[in-house]
């Protein structure tokens, strides 16, 4: 097991799933089934693989019990000790607020993972990037699978969705140290005609590669001093939207106050004047991120950085600032599968990929006990279940059924001559004779009448679809549920 040091693993599971309300109005996002397990199991598993034995889960008060019961279920193989911390439901709290609640638990670093991360990548690689650069905050980036980037037909929508286009982020990397993040800007914010780059920035980082192809996986390694800063800045709500861009920006700041204390001999008279003038508004300055870093940085480290010839702007003029005390780095994942199941499209994609990836998530012990088709499943003759399918326990499948590229939950009843392709069927679903279901998501306890034709639909919880009905590109849920969505 890898050494996790003093790192504290935190899973953010308080998100409401606002981008996929059709699915989350009945079930917390973290507990939506992906394959055979709730979504949150996957990040837990990733952390376990990276060597974490204690994991903090932040969830909402009202979900706490449900979360407890599901995660302590023996059918869900979890080795780590889980500590579930709840936050009030009432306020709409962001990720930064959640982190503030558990801040005392963080000793040196926090590894923050979102509950919707479904990835087969190795978190130890990510953590080593953080350690290698002694980073203040490290972000995991990945390229979306092409199947999501391309405009695919997503269940429940009339038109093809331009997926995630609006959430594109422009991220600038230093060109000769491509892990180093210099620039972070969401494209939604860029409504102005011009982007103005300050001369100071350009002089310090003369060559920046700005790419928009990366998605933020919402996996962060955050240094203690940043969290301390966060505690005092209650106006910051979200990690990605506010804290991260701010920290990226603050990389340019230099520690002036400290200099007047310890390097007085090195500062010129003008600078000394500056600092003394600055001392007057000290209380204000105290709040800045750079002041928190001072406690963490060793003098020797700073000295070494200052003298280093390998610093990126070697050969630059001596007046270019050298004090990079705040550092943002990225771990850029290029191989493997990584998706944030926070939209219906991404969720759908994750569910479909899971049968293929399942083995990588399971540990050796449980590998044998998890066949794609469990023994408790009864399949009548002349039915076909494709190898790319995943079936839950106690599923009853009738005659001449054909199931392809689909995931089927527990205790489902599938009658004769039903065809299911490319779909996600959750638990306790009943599908009557001769229905044809393709490209659909069918939620818990739904009932589909016979001879139904469903194409690219979402069927809500406990919905009954009447016999012979035909639907395409619709979200089928009851009126009251729709009202709830509207009220939210």
């Amino acid at each position, binding site marked *: 097991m890898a050494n996790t040091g003093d790192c504290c693993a935190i899973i953010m599971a308080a998100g409401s799933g606002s981008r996929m309300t059709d699915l989350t109005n009945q079930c917390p996002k973290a507990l939506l089934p992906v394959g055979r397990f709730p979504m949150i199991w996957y990040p837990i598993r990733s952390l376990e693989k990276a060597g974490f034995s204690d994991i903090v889960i932040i969830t909402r008060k009202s979900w706490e019990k449900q979360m407890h019961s599901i995660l302590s279920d023996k059918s869900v193989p979890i080795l780590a000790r889980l500590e579930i911390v709840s936050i009030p439901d009432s306020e709409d709290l962001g990720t930064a607020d959640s982190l503030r609640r558990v801040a005392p638990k963080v000793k040196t670093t926090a590894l923050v993972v979102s509950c919707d991360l479904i990835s087969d990548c190795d978190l130890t690689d990510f953590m080593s990037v953080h350690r290698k650069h002694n980073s203040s905050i490290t972000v995991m980036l990945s390229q979306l699978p092409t199947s999501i980037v391309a405009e695919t037909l997503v269940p429940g929508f009339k038109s093809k969705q331009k997926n995630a286009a609006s959430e594109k982020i*422009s991220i*600038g990397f230093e*060109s000769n140290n491509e892990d180093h993040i*210099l*620039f972070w*800007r969401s*494209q939604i914010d*860029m409504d*102005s*005609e*011009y*982007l*103005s*780059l*300050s*001369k*100071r*920035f*350009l*002089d*310090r980082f*003369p*060559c*920046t*590669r*700005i*790419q*928009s*192809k990366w998605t933020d996986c919402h996996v962060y390694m955050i240094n203690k001093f940043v969290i301390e800063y966060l505690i005092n800045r209650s106006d910051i709500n979200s990690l990605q939207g506010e804290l991260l861009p*701010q920290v*990226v*920006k*603050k*990389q*340019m*700041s*230099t520690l*002036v106050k400290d200099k007047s204390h310890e390097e007085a001999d090195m500062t*010129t008279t*003008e*600078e000394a004047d*500056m600092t003394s003038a*600055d001392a007057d*508004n000290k209380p*204000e*300055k105290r709040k*800045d991120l*750079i002041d928190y870093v001072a406690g963490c940085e060793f003098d020797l480290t700073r000295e070494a950085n200052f003298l280093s010839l390998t610093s990126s*702007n070697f*050969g*630059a*003029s*001596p*007046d*270019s*600032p050298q004090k990079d005390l705040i550092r943002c780095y990225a771990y850029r994942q290029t191989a493997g599968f990584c998706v944030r199941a926070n939209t219906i499209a991404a969720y759908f994609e994750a569910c479909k990929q899971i049968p293929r990836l399942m083995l990588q998530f399971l540990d050796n012990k449980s590998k044998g006990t998890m066949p794609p088709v469990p023994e408790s499943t009864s399949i009548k003759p002349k039915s076909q279940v494709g190898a790319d399918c995943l079936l839950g326990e106690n599923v009853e499948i009738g005659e001449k059924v054909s199931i392809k590229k689909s995931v089927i939950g527990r205790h489902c009843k599938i009658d004769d001559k039903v065809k299911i392709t490319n779909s996600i069927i959750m638990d306790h679903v009943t599908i009557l004779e001769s229905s044809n279901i393709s490209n659909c998501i069918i939620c818990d306890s739904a009932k589909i009448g016979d001879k139904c034709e469903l194409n690219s639909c979402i069927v809500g919880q406990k919905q009954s679809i009447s016999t012979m009905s035909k639907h395409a590109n619709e979200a089928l849920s009851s009126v009251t549920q729709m009202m709830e969505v509207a009220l939210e």
Partner: protein
Amino acid sequence: MAPKGKGRNEDLKQEDVLQAVVIADSFNVRFGPVTRDKPRALLPLVNVPLLDYTLEALATSGVQEVFVVCCHLGDQVRGHIRQSKWQDCGSPMAVTAVMSDSCLSMGDALREIDSKALIRTDFILIMGDIVANMDIGQVVKEHKARTQGKDKSSVMTLVFRVAQPGHRARTKEENMFLIEQGDTGRLLYFKKTKDDSRKIAVPMDILMEHDDIIVHNDLMDCHISVCSPSVPTLFTDNFDYQTRDDFVKGILIDEEIMGNKIHINIVRDKFAARVSNMQTYDAISKDVICRWTLPYVPDIYGSGSGERVKYGPHNVYCSKDVTLARGCELKRDVVVGSGTRVGSGTDISRCVIGKNCHIGDNVTLHNSYLWDNVRVEDNCEVDTALLCSGVSVLSNVVLKRGVILAWNVVVGPNVTIAQGTQLMSEPQRDEFDDNDLSFGDDDAQQLQSVKEKQGENEEETEAESYGAQSKAFLFKPYVDSDDEDEAAVIECQWGKSASDSEERNSYESESESEEEEEDSEGEAMGDFDADSEEEEDVVDSALGFSPKACMMRRNTDFYQELVDTIVRGHTEKITDDNLILEINSLKHAYTVPIDEVIASLPCAMFEMGASLNNAKVTADSKLFVLFKKNVERYAPLLSKYIKNAETQLVAINGLGDFVIRNSELRPKLPQLINFLYDADVLSEGSILSWFNSNRFQPGSNDALRHEFLKKLVQPLVKWLQEAEEESSEEDDDDDDDE
């Protein structure tokens, strides 16, 4: 050399011949008095003419045919080429001089090339003052691969060299910022930056449209480019392209229409740089001495004539027949040309000394460039100076930093030449005669005598300040249209090293303070606010708002033409209908919006009065009388344009801008409006609705401007309101104008 003569070249397929165009003129005067007598391409750098470096670089890159465009002092360039080794029968490269005295820019030179139809294939375009050891042939190959492959529309590949900000070879005027497409090397955005601008605004489209871009502030232009054969034609088609930067800008702007693209090539481990001013001359000389330009270093390439140069420790290069007296010291980075004698007790460091120079005893030479036949007598001190061929510095002279002594100047004895002085051996001629080199001897003499008479006294005092036996005249740096003050020119010439250190310190502290300022505001670097401050956006203290920001954009050419048209119409008594036709055609000619015509017309009426009276626009009462008359006379014409409520508002705003521009008229704004009101051009309703309009954001510039104008118009409005009340009391049958 291989028997690959010219005759052989012609046998080759014409497309296979790699061509290059060398521009042997800088089209500027960065070298001050030095380039008045010798073109920049022939100035020696470490004792070798610059043009030879350029041609050598081309030859090693596999170029077979070179056209050297000679403009300023072209005869000298041609002469140099005729005597060069390239004219030998075994030469691998054919060098042809293209004489074009009339060229004033690189654009002209390329148009000349185009008109002579010399270019058959992709070619290298290079300035004649480049030192490079890179393989330009490789760039040509890349360019060809691009044009023959997927990117047929690439017209030019620009070569840049990596140079971090603060690099000594980076000059203020050459500072640039560019954006490259990440994977293809396509140039997306290009901007020259002056040091004083603190922010660079990049069009957001670039970020939105391209997923992968590289923002460069770490590049230096090498002034080497590989061009498609269409480039000269493009220069001919667009006669406003003067420089390559114009061209690049033009291509980038018209990219969507023309579909032409520009790519860049970045040199990382080879050398390529242009001698564009004294700073780069200094930097590149040092690079040559420190062997960055291998094989173009003094001991290998140094003297084409075959004489031997010995390379010693600490980068000291001595020619074979140098005479060094006992006790003289060549410290480091020194090149001494053949036939030079150095006296005892002399101390030389970081210098280049040409052929047949004579350095006396106890001389200190530091960081200086002495060309051929220079004489520095005993006990002189020279620091960071350029001494052209034939210069004599008599004994006990101190040259402070940044001095330039042009050809054959004599200074001394016993004087100190101030920092940054530029001297030449003849009095300065008039700037405009500078380019006219063909005048006869008589003219020259005449001119000389006139000059002498004029400035006799002055010259005497000058001569005294440069020493009793001096032959030196001050060269006043030509301040060109960029509004550069002298200090800036000096700085450009010698770079930071020569500009006084105080200034630099202040700059530093300034930048520090900026940092803190920004930090404390919590908006450190890379802050990308939408409205970058424009220089012109300055708040006028008298007005309380910045006038430029809120005034309607206007085309001054159009406005002037409009005034002229109306004046002509008035004097020639053109009928209103025809005048309207003329005004409309003006509108189309200058492509101005109709609102601008409307806003300009009343102002033009006023200026017409002024110009008929040959007076300037003042608050003279005579002008008001004229204005009143004209308005009455042209009321029908004005009403054609200013016809409804909306256009009347535009007209009032136009007048508002007019009085903001002409501060004297500000108190008279009510009168101006009143005249238009009297002539029924403006209606009462629209004046009031203009007055009461509050469509501006409170506190914004527009709102402030409106407040300001409102105050001016207050009396008129008051009067109008009173009149309105009276009339409404009396009767109500007045039709509303609207």
